[in-house]
């Protein structure tokens, strides 16, 4: 399934500019698949059907841009991020970075790539070696890559520590002496040490307290502006993803269900799965919470070993269950809906997409709220208007 972007006008201005120059994006992922092989139980262990963790996803990412990957646990979003970084070899598909095919890079090639693309992990406790000092952890990339530094590794590391908001005097401390938020800063300092161009952030703030979460999100945004970093931001928290992303892809059972610019996706979600995800996000506003419509999904995520036929979401789709005629249902159960351009810069994999503007922005609570949501509508309209020019 080729990414339909090739022919379509896109509303994102950075992407439009790039298209005008006919340049390739920083990262282009095409039809990426990652299947984990399984063996049958018993004496003779034959190969069984694999777990299709990522099953044919395509996306582009420009320098300085953030793509959010959201979905329930088990949808393949983390696997997608790791496969892009070549932490696991993909089963199929290509990954092009900076204009060249890097799929399946090994040895020196891969090492060279590592200084260009880095990762920030979810667990700030598990991703730092407890026996190494912060200096050793943040300095390791320089040693491994044999990168020359002007005034020695130590000065460079202390500069990095200061940049991410750590006290450079703590150079010789160990990870256990830091709080969760500070450890995440250490992980970020390590990731930006060699000035990479792409960072995959795998749930970087979900283990942190709300007040600390905001500090780390702000830091990530500052670093992005300063070093023109591209982020693939994997998270399950739709509010954080909306805040940090330029574009957002919603994944379900290894496939992208919907991908669009952040404002478009959150103001006019099209896919029934996106609708239910957004309606489930708890809103810290008791009155809105009372009035809003909840689309409750029934049942659990189907097994990625035997995904449902046709549209993988049809087994839990509220629209399929309640609104479709029998002949329409047949289409959902038999025919796989490709990820298609449904509106300006807005792709969805659904036979019967429907724009629901009421989902995320619950009905305005008061007059000043109404004014506020009115202004969003006009600003997003302005975004669309600029686009053809």
């Amino acid at each position, binding site marked *: 399934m080729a990414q339909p972007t090739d022919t379509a006008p896109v509303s994102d201005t950075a992407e439009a500019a790039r298209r005008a120059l006919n340049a390739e994006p920083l990262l282009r992922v095409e039809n990426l698949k990652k299947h984990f092989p399984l063996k049958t139980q018993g004496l003779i262990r034959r190969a069984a059907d694999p777990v299709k963790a990522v099953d044919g996803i395509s996306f582009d990412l420009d320098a300085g841009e953030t793509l959010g990957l959201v979905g*329930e*646990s088990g949808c393949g979003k983390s696997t997608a991020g790791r496969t892009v970084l070549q932490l696991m070899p993909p089963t199929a598909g290509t990954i092009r970075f900076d204009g060249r095919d890097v799929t399946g890079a090994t040895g020196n090639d891969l090492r060279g790539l590592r200084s260009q693309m880095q990762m920030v992990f979810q667990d700030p406790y598990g991703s730092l070696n407890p026996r190494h000092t912060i200096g050793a952890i943040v300095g390791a990339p320089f040693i491994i890559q044999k990168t020359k530094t002007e005034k020695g590794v130590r000065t460079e590391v202390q500069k990095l520590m200061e940049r991410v908001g750590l006290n450079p005097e703590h150079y010789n401390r160990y990870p256990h002496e830091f*709080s*969760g*938020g*500070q450890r995440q800063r250490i992980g970020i300092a390590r990731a930006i040490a060699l000035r990479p161009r792409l960072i995959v952030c795998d749930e970087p703030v979900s283990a942190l*307290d*709300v*007040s*600390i*979460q*905001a*500090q780390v*999100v*702000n830091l990530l*945004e500052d670093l992005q502006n300063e070093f023109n970093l591209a982020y693939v931001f994997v998270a*399950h928290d*739709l*509010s*954080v993803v*909306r*805040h940090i992303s330029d574009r957002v892809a919603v994944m379900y059972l290894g496939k992208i269900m919907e991908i669009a610019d*952040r*404002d478009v996706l*959150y103001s006019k979600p099209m896919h029934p799965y996106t609708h*239910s*995800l*957004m*309606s*489930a*996000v*708890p*809103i*810290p*506003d*008791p*009155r*809105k*919470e009372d009035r809003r419509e*909840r689309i*409750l*999904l029934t*049942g*659990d*995520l189907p097994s990625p070993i035997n995904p449902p036929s046709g549209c993988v979401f049809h087994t839990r789709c509220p629209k399929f269950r309640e609104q479709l005629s029998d002949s329409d249902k047949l289409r959902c159960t038999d025919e796989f809906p490709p990820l298609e351009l449904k509106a300006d810069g807005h792709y969805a994999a659904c036979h019967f997409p429907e724009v629901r503007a009421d989902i*995320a*922005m*619950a009905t305005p609570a008061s007059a000043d709220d109404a004014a*506020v*949501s009115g*202004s*969003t509508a006009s600003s997003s309209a302005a975004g669309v208007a600029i686009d053809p020019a």
Partner: protein
Amino acid sequence: MSESATVAEVSTQRPHAMGETFLQLDDLKVHFPTEDGLVRSVDGLSFDLAKGKTLGIVGESGSGKSVTSQAIMGLHRHTRAKVSGQILLEGEDLLQVSDERLRKLRGNQIAMIFQDPLSALHPYYTIGNQIVEAYRVHHDVKKSAARTRVIEMLDLVGIPNPARRIDQYPHEFSGGMRQRAMIAMALVNDPKLLIADEPTTALDVTVQAQILHLLKDLQREFGSAIIIITHDLGVVAEVADDILVMYAGKSVERGPVDEVFYQPEMPYTWGLLASMPRIDRVRQERLNPIRGNPPSLINPPSGCAFHPRCDFVSKVEGNRCVEEVPMFDPEQVHPVRCHIDPELRRKLFISDIKPQL
């Protein structure tokens, strides 16, 4: 302490305690002696809860919210923890009752839902065995009768095909199903008080919505009192009647859910509300974090524990924020632990904070 003095006078009526008071905490302290010094996890906490009501306890990690719930369940008995104060359940002090009496109450009158169902359920026993045991400890019935009851409960919490699922092991359940099974176990004896410690934190939003919906339904049916502990303000907005905000082992603000959300008065609550990104509002260019880090519980800051992170210290005359612990009067409808003049607090909220939310 001034708090215990005021609490002593209260007992008869608090304006916001609708219905009869079912659970009452008076000046609860839980301290852990460690090599580094005394950790004051809970330091003088008082609140009350009526039947059929839900109290949401909100705070960051280390604020003492989980330790409070463990103390109510009596999980600090025979450990090194130093527990003082009173926990009155229908007038009976849970800190004073015998172990045997507590065993009768625990699981029967008060039950708990833990955050991580995989470590709270035993991997070697089937789901059915574990819930049947929980039921038979408190009810003198045959195994078959208990089994029927458990199938009923599993059905009630929305586990499909309960007659078959009852014989499966925890690892055969998905995360959401395990959480449901644990809720079924907690509810099997119709407890009057249910404590849910981060019941949905490990779950996806879609499953979280299902579980919260379920808790509300069950409360309507059984009329239990619920304490829900969480760091997610969205969750408490959805289920709680009253909210208690904790910081450094102390309550800093308490009130009916609407008041805490629409007229919060404590700068820490402001910080919590302002720092979270929200999908129901216009996207902000930058988030407004609370600066600094959560406080040490061994050497908590002097005076108001929040003062090193507070932007409004200059609004209080003299050096009171640093020198004097602010009072917290549980008798009020909406008590706040803050030195700023109440009039000024309300003005500050409207002028400085509300526009950011």
